[in-house]
C-alpha cells in the first residue's frame, strides 16, 4: 500500500464520519426542536398540570392547585359523561364502518376493473376538502327542504321531509355517515397500499392449491394486511375521538351530537373553566390510552398465536 493510498483511505474515513452520526446533528435539529419544545411540549405539560388546578378565564384570579377536586367534580358531571358516551359511540361507529367500507373499496380498486384510474381519483375527493366545507356541503345535502338526500328519497316514494340534523333520532347517525365519508380516502389509500404489498406468489400458490377467493382472502390477504389494519384503525380511532370542526359546523353539538371535544371547548372558551376543561382533556387521554392498550395488546397476542 502506497502512502497515497493510505492518505486517501484516511480521508475517506474522516469524510465518512462527517456525514455519519455526529454531534452537529443536534445543532441542525435545534431550530425545529425549539419551537416544538416552547409551543408544544411545554404547553402540553402545562395543560396536564392545569387539569389539577382551578384556573379560569377571569383576569387576576389566583390559580390554586386543587389536587383531584376537578376529577371528583367530573365524576358527578352527568352532561360530561353523556358527551363522553356520545364520543365513544361516534368514534367506534365511524372507525368501524369506515374500516369495512374502505377495505371493500380498496379490494375493488385492487381488483383489476375497468375505469380504475378514475375511481381512484374520485375516491380521494373527501380528502381534498377542509372539514368546515365538508360539513357545509353535507348540511346542504341533508337540508330538510332543498337537500339531495330527501330529494332522492322523495323520488322513490319514501318519506322526504326528514330533518336529518335537526332531531335527536337522526342527528348522530347522520353525523356518523359524514364522518365516514370524510375519513374514507386516507383509510382506503392506506389499505390499498397494503394490499399491493401482499405477496402475489403466495396468492398464486394458494390458488394452485385450490383455495377459493374467500379462502385466499382470509388466509393470505388478511394476515399480510394485519399490521396496516392495526395502524390505520388506531390512527382513525384517535382522530375520530378528537374530531371537532366537522360536528361543530354540522350541528354545533345539538341533538345528541355533543362530542367530548366540543364539550371541552365550550367548558374552556364559553364558560371559562380552564382547569375543568383541562381535566376533561386528561380523562380523555387516559381513556383513549386504555382502549388502545387493550386493542394493541389483543392484536399482539393474536400475532403470537
Amino acid at each position, binding site marked *: 500500500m502506497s502512502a497515497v493510498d493510505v492518505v486517501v483511505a484516511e480521508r475517506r474515513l474522516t469524510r465518512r464520519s462527517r456525514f455519519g*452520526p455526529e454531534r452537529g446533528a443536534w445543532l*441542525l*435539529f435545534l431550530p425545529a426542536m425549539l419551537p416544538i419544545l416552547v*409551543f408544544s411540549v411545554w404547553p402540553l405539560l402545562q395543560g396536564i398540570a392545569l387539569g389539577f388546578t382551578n384556573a379560569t378565564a377571569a383576569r387576576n384570579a389566583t390559580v390554586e392547585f386543587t389536587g383531584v377536586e376537578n376529577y371528583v367534580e367530573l365524576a358527578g358531571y352527568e352532561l360530561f359523561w353523556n358527551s363522553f358516551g356520545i364520543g365513544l359511540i361516534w368514534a367506534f361507529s365511524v372507525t368501524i364502518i369506515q374500516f369495512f367500507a374502505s377495505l371493500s373499496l380498496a379490494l375493488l380498486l385492487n381488483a*383489476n*376493473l375497468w375505469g380504475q384510474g378514475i375511481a381512484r381519483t374520485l375516491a380521494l375527493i373527501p380528502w381534498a376538502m377542509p372539514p368546515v366545507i365538508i360539513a357545509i356541503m353535507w348540511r346542504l345535502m341533508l337540508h330538510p327542504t332543498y337537500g339531495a338526500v330527501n330529494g332522492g328519497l322523495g323520488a322513490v316514494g319514501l318519506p322526504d321531509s326528514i330533518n336529518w340534523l335537526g332531531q335527536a333520532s337522526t342527528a348522530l347517525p347522520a353525523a356518523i355517515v359524514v364522518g365516514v365519508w370524510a375519513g374514507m380516502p386516507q383509510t382506503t389509500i392506506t389499505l390499498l397500499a397494503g394490499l399491493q404489498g401482499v405477496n402475489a406468489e403466495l396468492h398464486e400458490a394458494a390458488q394452485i392449491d385450490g383455495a377459493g377467493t374467500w379462502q385466499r382472502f382470509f388466509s393470505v390477504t388478511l394476515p399480510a394486511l394485519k399490521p396496516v389494519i392495526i395502524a390505520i384503525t388506531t390512527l382513525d380511532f384517535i382522530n375520530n375521538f378528537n374530531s371537532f370542526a366537522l360536528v361543530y359546523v354540522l350541528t354545533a353539538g345539538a341533538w345528541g351530537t355533543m362530542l367530548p371535544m366540543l364539550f371541552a371547548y365550550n367548558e374552556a372558551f364559553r364558560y371559562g373553566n380552564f382547569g375543568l376543561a383541562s381535566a376533561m382533556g386528561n380523562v380523555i387521554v387516559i381513556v383513549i390510552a386504555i382502549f388502545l392498550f387493550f386493542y394493541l395488546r389483543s392484536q399482539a397476542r393474536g400475532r403470537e398465536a
Partner: protein
Amino acid sequence: MRRRRFSIGRMLQYVAIVLFMIFLAFPLLFLFTTAFKSQRELQSPDPQLLPAQWNLDNFTAAIDRANLIQAAGNSLIVALVTTLIVVAVSLPAAYALARSRTRLRKLATGWILLSQVFPFILIIVPLYLMLQPLGLGNSLGGLVVVYVVWSLPFALWMLQGYVASIPVDLEEAGAMDGAPKWRVLVSIVLPLLAPGLVATSLFAFIGSWNEFFFALVLIKDEALQTLPQRLALFVGAEGQVQLGQLAAASLLAAIPSLLFFALIQRRLTSGLLSGAVKG
C-alpha cells in the same frame, strides 16, 4: 395480469364500485350545481340536479356578503408564512434526522406519534394563556406560531423520508471529489430533494389553509378571521337562507385544496403516504 372475465361476481363488483363512487363524489357535484342555481330555482318545488341557467350571482354575492376576499387574504398570509417557516426549519432537522441513528431519531419519532394522541384542548388552553401576554393572542402572528408547531412534526417526518431515500454514497462521492460539505448539500442533496420539498410545503400550506379549531379559539377580531372561520359563521347567519351563496363560498374556498390534490393524486395513489403510516 389476470384476464378480465365477465361473470355475476364481476358485475356485482362494478355495481359496488359505482355505488361507492356516487357516495364519495355526488356531494361535491351537488355543492357545485347548487352554487350555480338562482335562489328561485333552488326553491322550486320540482328540483333538478343541473341548474336551468348557470349563473354566477351566488359567487359575487357570497364574496361580497361574507367578505371572502379579506378572509382569503388572511388565510393566504398565514398559510404562506407558516409554510416558509416550516420548510426552513424542518429542512436541516430532517437532514439530521435521516442521517443520524442516534437517540434523536427515537425521540423525534416518539414525539410525532405522541402529538397525535393528545387532544387539542390540552394544548390550546395553555397556548392561549401563553400567547396573550406576548401580544399574539388575537393576531395572525399567533396563529402562525401555532400552525408552525402543529405542522412541524408531520413535515419533519415526511421530509426525512425523502432525505433517507437519497443514497449517502452520492454525498460521499461528492466529498471524495473535494467539495466542501455545504457545496455537496446544495448541489447534490438539494436538487434531489426538490420534489420532497414541494410535497412537504404543499402539505403544510393546505393544512394551515384548512385549519379551523385553533383559528376559532385564537382569532376574535372579525378583520383577522380566516376563511374556514368566516365560512362557519356564514353558515349560522345568512347561510341559513342563502343556500346558493353558501355553496358558492364553500366551493371557492375549497379550490386550493382541490387543485393541490389533483396535482399530487398520482403520488398519493402510488403510496406516498403509506410509508408515512407504516413508518
